């Protein structure tokens, strides 16, 4: 379990992470989604104690990571694809790191086989493709049989085969009761892997919800209603809707109810409707919508 409490990180005048709090729970895959520069990597570095928080705290399995006796058994992390020395072989890289926790060569060979690098294990890691580098990073993350697996953009550079492999791997790790926390800037990826979704933009948490609740609230059955009798209709629908968002004095968006039911309800109560529009949004669009104010680098087209 990872508990992030009021975490803030400032680099000079730039606030990379702005007073965020969330909990990553064991037994499921938690996706950490946000545009580039949203603060995902900074947050993950603070979880590992690599960066010192400006304020707030992180607990890793209820402890400060630096105070854990067996860090490799608490968290296995992949933070950057090239976090190794180019001149060292993949196997020696793992052997050197594993030695700091008393883990021997047989476990090293085991994880190398697990990530499919056993045949190139004695080659210099500097010659690896991005995908092979990611696999080496995942081997590093798994070597200590960690209770938490934390991966920053793990599918970057992986071929479709590798993407499928990592999806199965993460699911298996979560099913074993481990905490699985991974970041991505791609909603499409999260949709396929994550049970829980934490969306971050400009250092702030924009959503922290289960994947299914997120899908429910954003996909097909969202309906925009424009009516002069907003308060009455809202009270009639509240009991049956998962969420009602009032946008102006006569407009609200509700989810969880079909447009037909809303029309029927309004008609029965004698409420005039000016507009009744089913809104259909893809998850990718929902993500864009949520983070549109927090994307750092707009392209000209989107900036308008």
């Amino acid at each position: 379990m990872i508990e992030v409490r009021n975490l803030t990180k400032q680099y000079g005048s730039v606030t990379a992470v702005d007073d965020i709090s969330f909990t990553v729970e064991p037994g499921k895959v938690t996706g950490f989604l946000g545009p580039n520069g949203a603060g995902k990597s900074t947050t993950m570095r603070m979880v590992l104690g690599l960066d010192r928080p400006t304020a707030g705290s992180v607990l890793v399995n209820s402890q400060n990571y630096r105070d854990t006796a067996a860090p490799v058994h608490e968290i296995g992390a992949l933070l950057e694809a090239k976090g190794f020395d180019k001149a060292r072989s993949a196997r020696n890289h793992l052997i050197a790191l594993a030695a700091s926790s008393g883990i021997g060569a047989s476990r090293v060979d085991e994880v190398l086989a697990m990530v499919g690098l056993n045949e190139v294990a004695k080659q210099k890691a500097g010659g690896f493709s991005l995908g092979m580098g990611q696999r080496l990073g995942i081997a590093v993350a798994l070597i200590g049989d960690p209770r938490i697996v934390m991966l920053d953009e793990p599918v970057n550079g992986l071929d479709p085969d590798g993407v499928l492999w990592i999806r199965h791997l993460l699911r298996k790790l979560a099913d074993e009761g481990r905490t699985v926390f991974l970041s991505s800037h791609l909603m499409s990826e999260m949709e396929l892997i994550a049970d829980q979704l934490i969306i971050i933009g400009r250092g702030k948490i924009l959503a922290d919800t289960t994947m299914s609740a997120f899908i429910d609230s954003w996909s097909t059955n969202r309906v925009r209603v424009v009516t002069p009798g907003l308060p009455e209709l809202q009270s009639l629908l509240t009991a049956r809707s998962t969420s009602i968002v009032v946008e102006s004095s006569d407009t609200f968006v509700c989810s969880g109810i079909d447009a037909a039911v809303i029309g029927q309800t309004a008609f029965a109560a004698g409420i005039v409707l000016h507009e009744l529009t089913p809104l259909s949004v893809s998850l990718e669009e929902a993500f864009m919508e949520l983070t549109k104010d927090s994307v750092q680098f707009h392209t000209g087209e989107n900036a308008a």
Partner: protein
Amino acid sequence: MSVDVDVTFPRIIRSEFIKLRTLRSTWILLGSMLLLFIAFGAIAALATTGQIDDGRGGPPAALGLDPVTTVLAGGGFAVLIMSVFGVLCGAREYGSGMIRTTLAFVPKRLPVLLAKVLVLIGLVIPVVILAAVGAFFLGMAVLSAAGDTTTSLSDPDAQRVLIGTAAYITGLSVIGLALGMAMRSMPGAIATVIGGVLILPALLTALLPESWRSVLKYLPSNAAAPFTEIKVRADMLALTPGIIFFLAWVVASLVVAGILFVRRDA
């Protein structure tokens, strides 16, 4: 996992040793230091005895030097190579991003720094002693064969200079490591250690007014003079203060590196 995977200091040392052992540059640097130290001692001895002609037909080039100074002529190369080796041990992981992987495995930072220092010292000391003693015996054999004056290893001054030179080179490699960790850049740290140790004293000697020159003896290379040079020089510190000031430089560089390492984001 029921097996013990706690991080312990001996395990960190082992990890740091494996890191160095598995880089070819480690063996290239240690090997070339050994080779150059011994080879240049022999060449200097040959030159002194006139067995190597300097091509100008004059008297032997190194004439007049003390035998110990002659046979340890390769020490300058060893100083350079081991300073660079130290810098490499400190800065290399910053070049690759490996340092963050290391700290994910060992989140407490001071033990990492300490382990790096101990592994460096453990590698440098035996090789530099081997190199110095090798240069001593080979060089003295060359001098003796030519009938020149030699110094025996039982001579207290020879022992002082041999041990002192080995300690000086080891100490500089540690300063190199500290600078590498503090500056996180190999070129910068190499320039600083070489500039500070080899160029700065000469530069300041030329630039400082006469009355200020007394501070020069506290610079690392000059503080080491009483235990690396056979003749005791009047303008340098005595042996004990020399040892203390040189050690102080080593310790101070490590303290600065340690404070920065612990406080800064990795």
